[in-house]
């Protein structure tokens, strides 16, 4: 403003604030986020990678470089091709599998919910979105614990069935197995999947749907030819949003998994805490990240082949 008032020949070149390059202004804006990301994520991540090349010697760490931890894990994995997978490989495969099933369940649950909100609710959509967040008002731990109460030996289902006279003894297969982990994960993460799917459905121009009907599609056909392909960005986002965090989930298998339901997260925690072998735990963490990255890349390669070709949707 002062530059303008001075009436100089080229006011912009005299204004000192104008000289600051754009990238610096951008840097200021992201500085807080960047500090957190570097301090809380990048540094620990580097620490994990570095520690994974060390050795635990009693209470001390031998900081000389070694590939021993990875060697152990590679041996563990190589056993898959001879006499059955080793402990860690089994856990990683099981974790990926449980997450895959839970993610599938989540998307199958969330999609109709998102569809209903996007296409059937005419008024008060905000109320529905708020209702969707209600589960988050209690902590994750409590929600997982609630499933323990529902599925437990003397839990809601068993005592209900018993009082109805349908069973004599409580059903033991409900809790402490991979299935109970899957159910709990599917419930706990459903809300995360609804929102991205809802947004991508809401964004679809209604004239596309009318055009599809006009060109002879029934409702069912129209869904698969127009609605679903156009909602893919949100659906893919939902799948990644649920799959990636659930592979490494630690609380759910600890509370409802039992011995057969433990996942790789539990094993990593054991290495760090009980087994006092941080380097092996760190190597396991790195291996798990690698496994998730590979799984996600594979998924995107399969799903995204057609989409990448077609620019934006």
């Amino acid at each position: 403003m002062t530059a303008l008032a001075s009436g100089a020949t080229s006011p912009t070149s005299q204004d000192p604030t104008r000289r600051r390059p754009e990238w610096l202004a951008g840097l200021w804006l992201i500085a807080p986020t960047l500090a957190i990301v570097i301090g809380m994520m990048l540094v620990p991540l580097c620490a994990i990678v570095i520690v994974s090349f060390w050795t635990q010697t009693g209470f001390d760490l031998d900081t000389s470089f070694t590939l021993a931890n990875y060697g152990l894990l590679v041996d563990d994995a190589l056993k898959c091709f001879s006499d059955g997978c080793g402990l860690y490989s089994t856990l990683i495969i099981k974790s990926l599998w449980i997450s895959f099933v839970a993610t599938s369940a989540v998307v199958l649950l969330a999609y109709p919910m998102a569809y209903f909100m996007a296409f059937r609710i005419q008024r008060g959509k905000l109320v529905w979105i708020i209702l969707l967040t209600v589960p988050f008002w209690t902590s994750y731990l409590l929600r997982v614990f609630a499933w323990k109460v529902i599925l437990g030996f003397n839990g809601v289902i068993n005592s209900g069935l018993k009082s109805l006279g349908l069973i004599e003894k409580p059903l033991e297969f409900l809790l402490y197995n991979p299935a109970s982990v899957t159910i709990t994960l599917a419930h706990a993460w459903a809300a995360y999947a609804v929102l991205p799917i809802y947004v991508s459905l809401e964004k679809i121009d209604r004239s596309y749907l009318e055009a599809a009907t006009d060109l002879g599609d029934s409702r069912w056909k129209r869904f698969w030819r127009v609605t679903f392909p156009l909602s893919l960005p949100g659906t893919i986002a939902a799948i990644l949003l649920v799959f990636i965090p659930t592979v490494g989930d630690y609380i759910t298998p600890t509370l409802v998994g039992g011995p057969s339901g433990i996942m790789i997260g539990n094993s990593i925690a054991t290495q760090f805490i009980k087994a006092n072998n941080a380097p092996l735990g760190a190597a396991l963490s790195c291996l798990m990240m690698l496994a998730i990255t590979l799984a996600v890349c594979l998924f995107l390669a399969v799903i995204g082949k057609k989409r990448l070709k077609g620019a934006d949707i």
Partner: protein
Amino acid sequence: MASSDNAMITLSAVTKRFGAFTAVDAATFDIAAGEFFSLLGPSGCGKTTLLRMIGGFEQQTSGEILIDGEAMGTRPPNHRPTNMVFQSYAIFPHLDVAENIAYGLANRPVDKATVARKVDAALEMVRLSGLGKRRANQLSGGQRQRVALARAIVCEPKVLLLDEPLGALDKKLREEMQIELRQLQKSLGITFIFVTHDQEEALSLSDRIAVMARGKVLQIDSATALYERPNCREVAGFIGNMNFFEGRVVAVEGDQAVMEIGPDIRVRVPLTGQSVTAGGNAILAVRPEKIDAVVDRPAPSRNAIRATTRASSYLGDRSLILADWHQEAAPVSVSLQNRHAAAESPLAGGAAREIWLTWPVEAGVLLSD
């Protein structure tokens, strides 16, 4: 209007209400097979609602729509012999041009080779050959418009519905597309129902036009008839420019009426079926380009009123003159062809001057009050 033998579409008392609001009020008319029919009116007049009811996208509150003799009832759009070109074009963004055009064919029992052949033919017809692999976002507005057209036509509908398809295009492109659309309709022989708020577009394209306002169909006629013989003040005012003279019928003489439009100002108006009686109020409508502005008193066989020029504007091919003729009445606008160089015009200079406004008796239209 009685249902004729070659009617492709018959509307009988088609009404659509949204709560207390009547969007379309008892529309009753026929559209002939192979006709280019336009629904013209200001926004909110119910033209799009009527089109959507024919296509099955809206359900009429009452009345019946017959397409090719078949009552449509509550039939959904996918079971009607109609296809629509949407205002927004609605080109599927996840499919390329060829896939878009082939979309409707997938719902027919046709083999792949036939689909490919039909898509190629449709692309050629709308002059988009070679662009089959493009996506909607790689096309210009005019190209999208053509894809939407090809996608609908390839389904060989009995009736093609077009919802303001040229509204989003710039003026030059719109004029090109109008010509193409007209040629396409002629060569295909499909019945077109075209919704527009642009009167010039409707006049230049259509065989017949239905002028709508407030949900009512006011007049259905050819472009010439609508322009030359509007049946009410609303139609007269909506299509082109019009001067209105309010007055009283003082005498009926054969096929002419004598009207008094001001104190001792009498003019003659032709009667074309209007029922008028001496003494009743009436409105005389005269187009600006049918009025001549002259300096000397014209022959008594023509209608003439004394006026003072108030303003004139030179538009190149023609000049517009506003002239006051009566203190209480609106000024008359006159459009003069500039056949001579500006300096030779009797009104050159632009200063206020006394003139005669004159028009032949046949140029006037008598409208009931």
